[in-house]
């Protein structure tokens, strides 16, 4: 991975590593047990300029390219998937406001978000609608100068800590008027209930948001009604998938580091574990998949940087491959570490739990198979036909 980065990106990699080693790594286990990340940690991230890394400097960001953001996520996730979840949702919200917001909305929210004074979360999923997002039933009802929200959102990452939410629903209940709005946590009629006992992202303060005649100003509508599910959500989720792909990459990196240290020290039957062929095979597959996943992740960031129309597909491929590989190798990592890997205090135990959720979030891997299966079938068949090789 590191060999594929530019000089500036390598320097950032080292800087992020140092930050994480002193501010994240030693405490990540405690956050998991308490199921929350203390506010002081987020303040430290803000002081270091990390809350708005990928945002332009004019809004207080650092102007990172996509790959630098990815590398940052990899380094954070190796130590704490839960903390990487914060950057994921906060970035999705900032990027959505930057892309679709009015000048007033950008000025109102972005500077305070890049400074980490205001935290964002994205509320799409509902108790009756997850993968099938067209099925959301949250309604926005227009009055003269207000929007009244009714409905429930569930599994909202950092919902328990966020100050502002992008909430998806349907204007006046009309299917063709899917809309996104910006809601502040203290809006009258919004009740936030924290969710406990997740198997992964344990410290990511997941929450249920209950909207009971919740009132917001009409100025908080993000872009025009009708485009929330076709444009705003896919745009946000594209960033979410970059985060998830690099989170999985960080986990694989962690698996490799912990496993290689262990197999070079631990002896069984008079030999170091690395001498056993089945262990070598597991380490080989882990290393090869890490390298392959890194290439896919980096390639997708380059395409995104260059506004390539197929970048969304490249990001999906990276998310799919990397999360599946991380799932498999976290399982092997627990195997290689034996009983030590079965204890919650060891990071590979956390990797084992977290990787299951990575296969479900930001478009589950089954939904990705629906998209990519169709797309590949068409793409490769048609190139065969174009080349005059197709059989009818």
């Amino acid at each position, binding site marked *: 991975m590191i060999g594929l980065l530019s000089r500036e990106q390598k320097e950032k990699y080292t800087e992020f590593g140092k930050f994480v080693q002193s501010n994240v790594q030693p405490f990540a286990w405690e956050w998991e047990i308490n199921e929350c990340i203390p506010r002081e940690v987020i303040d430290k991230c803000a002081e270091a300029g990390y809350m708005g890394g990928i945002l332009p400097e004019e809004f207080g960001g650092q102007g990172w390219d996509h790959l630098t953001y990815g590398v940052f996520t990899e380094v954070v996730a190796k130590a704490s998937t839960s903390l990487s979840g914060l950057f994921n949702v906060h970035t999705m919200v900032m990027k959505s406001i930057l892309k679709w917001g009015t000048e007033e909305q950008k000025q109102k929210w972005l500077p305070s978000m890049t400074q980490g004074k205001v935290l964002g979360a994205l509320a799409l999923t509902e108790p009756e609608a997850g993968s099938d997002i067209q099925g959301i039933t949250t309604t926005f009802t227009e009055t003269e100068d207000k929007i009244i929200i009714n409905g429930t959102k569930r599994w909202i990452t950092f919902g328990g800590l966020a100050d502002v939410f992008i909430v998806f629903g349907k204007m006046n209940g009309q299917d063709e008027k899917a809309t996104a709005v910006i809601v502040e946590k203290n809006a009258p009629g919004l009740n936030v209930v924290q969710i406990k006992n997740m198997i992964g992202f344990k410290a990511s303060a997941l929450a249920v948001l209950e909207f009971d005649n919740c009132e917001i100003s009409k100025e908080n509508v993000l872009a025009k009604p009708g485009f929330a599910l076709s*444009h705003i959500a896919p745009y946000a989720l594209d960033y979410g998938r970059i985060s998830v792909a690099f989170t999985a990459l960080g986990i694989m990196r962690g698996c490799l580091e912990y496993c290689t240290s262990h197999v070079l020290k631990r002896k069984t039957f008079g030999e170091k574990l690395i001498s056993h062929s089945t262990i070598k095979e597991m380490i080989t597959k882990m290393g090869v998949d890490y390298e392959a996943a890194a290439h896919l992740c980096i390639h997708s960031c380059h395409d995104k940087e260059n506004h*390539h129309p197929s970048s*969304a597909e490249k990001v999906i491929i990276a998310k799919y491959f990397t999360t599946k590989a991380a799932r498999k190798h976290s399982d092997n990592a627990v195997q290689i570490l034996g009983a030590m890997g079965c204890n919650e205090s060891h990071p590979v135990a956390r990797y084992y739990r977290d990787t299951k959720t990575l296969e479900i979030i930001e478009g589950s891997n089954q939904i990705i198979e*629906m998209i990519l299966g169709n*797309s590949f079938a*068409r793409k490769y068949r*048609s190139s065969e036909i174009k080349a005059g090789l197709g059989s009818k």
Partner: protein
Amino acid sequence: MDNKEKVRMFIEDNLIRYDEETIFSDEDNIFSMGFVNSLFAMKLLNYIESEFSITVDSDELELSNFSSVNNIISFLNKKAGTANNS
């Protein structure tokens, strides 16, 4: 290749139908025919912005601007006219 051919080709490459007989006219609404997946709308916007070096503003988001080959071409011509007039 003219703009219309470019746009048609982009859409054809992104259809989710495998049968070679899938045909659509320049007037057909590609979204309502169910020929495209959930990523397509964003991909199309990305394509239009990068291929024709324009930015589609939030207030230009109108389904009618993007729903058919002819509508996309009219939108591009309108944008070019606005750019030339400014």
